[in-house]
């Protein structure tokens, strides 16, 4: 069995296991390459028809290309799409230009997701996070419990050995399940290529720039790149030394710190 097939089998096993354990489950789809890969795997796991809803947390600030891509796939793949929006805060004008970016992310992403989990009575959600994305994710498990405060107590997780996944859950808690935790960025692109997966065009180079990671329009910046095909992206990542999220204003703590310092005239 080749490498990608092994990865795929493992993911499909976890997706099926999760659906078997939790009926109140949904998949979180950011429309980016990772969760689109996860969505593809969910389709494969259930022979083309995903039996649970797909949640898109819509901050209202996503790229137009992402909304278009989302709507096309929903139609083509016959998905049951749920949209999570923090309407109240959006009405109040919350956005990256208002207050701190940390507050913006908190309200429009984290709290919007909290609301959706409550509204749809979800016990578990499938997410497309990968272990190599960020230092803190190295400690993640395939089945990862969160308490009612959304807190992840990574020093007090149930043991997870081989394929014995711990999936019991207390009231008020929910499980996060990470079926592609073992994929690397390069694996994802190789898999996208092998499967012929459709992908948001923002990832491909235009005028010498492309997005390596996408989120909200105001907080993402493209990297210098001429990679305009999947083959070229695979080659670029194989040889790249900078981190995937470097173009992403994702290091919230740094941004927040900078904002605080600026307000007092430092920097």
């Amino acid at each position, binding site marked *: 069995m080749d490498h990608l097939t092994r990865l795929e089998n493992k993911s499909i096993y976890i997706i099926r296991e999760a659906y078997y354990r939790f009926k109140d489950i949904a998949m979180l789809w950011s429309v980016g390459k990772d969760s689109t890969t996860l969505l593809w795997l969910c389709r494969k796991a259930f022979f083309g028809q995903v039996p649970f809803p797909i949640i898109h947390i819509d901050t209202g600030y996503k790229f137009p290309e992402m909304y278009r891509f989302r709507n096309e796939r929903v139609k083509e793949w016959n998905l049951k799409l749920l949209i999570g929006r923090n309407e109240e805060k959006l009405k109040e004008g919350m956005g990256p230009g208002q207050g701190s970016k940390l507050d913006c992310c908190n309200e429009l992403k984290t709290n919007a997701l909290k609301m959706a989990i409550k509204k749809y009575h979800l016990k578990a959600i499938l997410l497309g996070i990968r272990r190599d994305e960020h230092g803190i994710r190295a400690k993640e498990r395939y089945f990862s419990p969160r308490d009612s405060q959304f807190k992840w107590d990574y020093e007090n997780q149930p043991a997870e050995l081989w394929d014995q996944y711990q999936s019991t859950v207390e009231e008020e808690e929910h499980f996060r399940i990470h079926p592609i935790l073992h994929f690397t960025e390069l694996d994802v692109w190789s898999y996208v290529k092998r499967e012929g997966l459709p992908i948001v065009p923002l990832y491909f180079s235009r005028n010498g720039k492309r997005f390596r990671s996408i989120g909200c329009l105001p907080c993402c910046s493209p990297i210098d790149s001429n990679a305009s095909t999947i083959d070229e992206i695979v080659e670029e990542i194989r040889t790249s030394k900078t981190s995937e999220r470097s173009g992403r204003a994702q290091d919230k703590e740094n941004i927040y710190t900078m904002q605080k310092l600026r307000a*007092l005239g430092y920097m």
Partner: protein
Amino acid sequence: MPNLKEILGQGFVLHRMNASIPDISSVSWTSFNTGVNPGEHGIYGFTDLSPHSYSLYFPNSRDVQAPTFWEILGKTSQKSSTLSQQYRKKIGRSYRSIILNVPHTYPAWPMNGILVSGFVSLDLKKATFPESAYPYLHSIHYLIDVEAEKAREDKGSFMRSLFECFEIRKKAISHLFEKESWDLFFACVTESDRLHHFFFEASEDERNPYYEPFIRFYTELDNFIKVLYEEFSRRSHGKGFFAILSDHGFAPVKKEVYLNRFLEEQGFLVLRKDGKFYERIDGRTRAFNMDPGRICLHDQDRYPRGAVRKEDRSNLLEDIKEALRNLKGENGEKVIDKIYEKEEIYNGPYSEMAPALVCLPNDGYDLKGSLEKKEIFGQNIFTGMHTWHDALCLLPEKIILPEKPFIQNLTEYVLQYYTE
């Protein structure tokens, strides 16, 4: 401040002292907290560059290399410094401390007692040790800091939130002071700093709409000092140790001075268009500035595009100093008061990472590290700036200080009290 005056009459002396170099809160408080100079504690500013790169890095409590006095007293740290070596054996038992709102203590970390970090804290949970102290803070809607961002939009509402913040600070301080057990209590009021940064001009002009709140703030502060002092006297039966200190002084701002623009005009700094902040440094750069007046040489062995060879350093330093000495402000007055080479002011295992030169300005010229400015001089929203030479401390009169002490000299007297 009548209450402060009354306390002074009861066996205390007010001393002038020097802040740390540079005189910004992260460095000055860390110097007091550890009782050593930046060469030993490793903190030189709110920002630094990651080693061998141009990427900005924000040092936090984890980057402090020397133990704080509460760790020395609590015997809870493996770290060591010249001060801790001296006192480790003399401290008889583990003392319990409560430390509240002290800058540059974020994230909070384990110690004997309670630690609630101050500026730049991002998240109250991470700013609180132990976790059991959090529910109380949460219940009073504790505020880490006034949102200085607000000052740009609406000074009036900023002033109001400054008072709100001060109220909540007093509430938390009083609660912990009275309800918790402790051997040492140390709390910082940071609202006074914000008040001076944004409203200093109001303090001397009765017609200014913020004159009244400015004075009122100090009246309230004075009252609060009285409350704390009386509670302290009651608890300690006249045998305790009571002190007040500031981590720097303040002066009105005449001009902000953008030293990077100056270095550019003098040909020491060349910036590219692309990149963020210091990533813009071009290979032709020989020196650049970081907030407030930290001049770094673009050393060959330290930076990816570094151009300054070891053998050229001393001549270059002289050239930069000469240029800085000739920098003139309004009416031809000198902008820079003192220029120190790092060897003159820092010593210890972390002095290698220090900036090559540190400039201290004459009062009124607020040095800045911005890379975006097109002029050397400018104005901002701030009307008050830090000063190095007139921080102050109030200490029991039996303590004989060296003439014009540095802030880090004070820490030893705190430790000494616990050896008696």
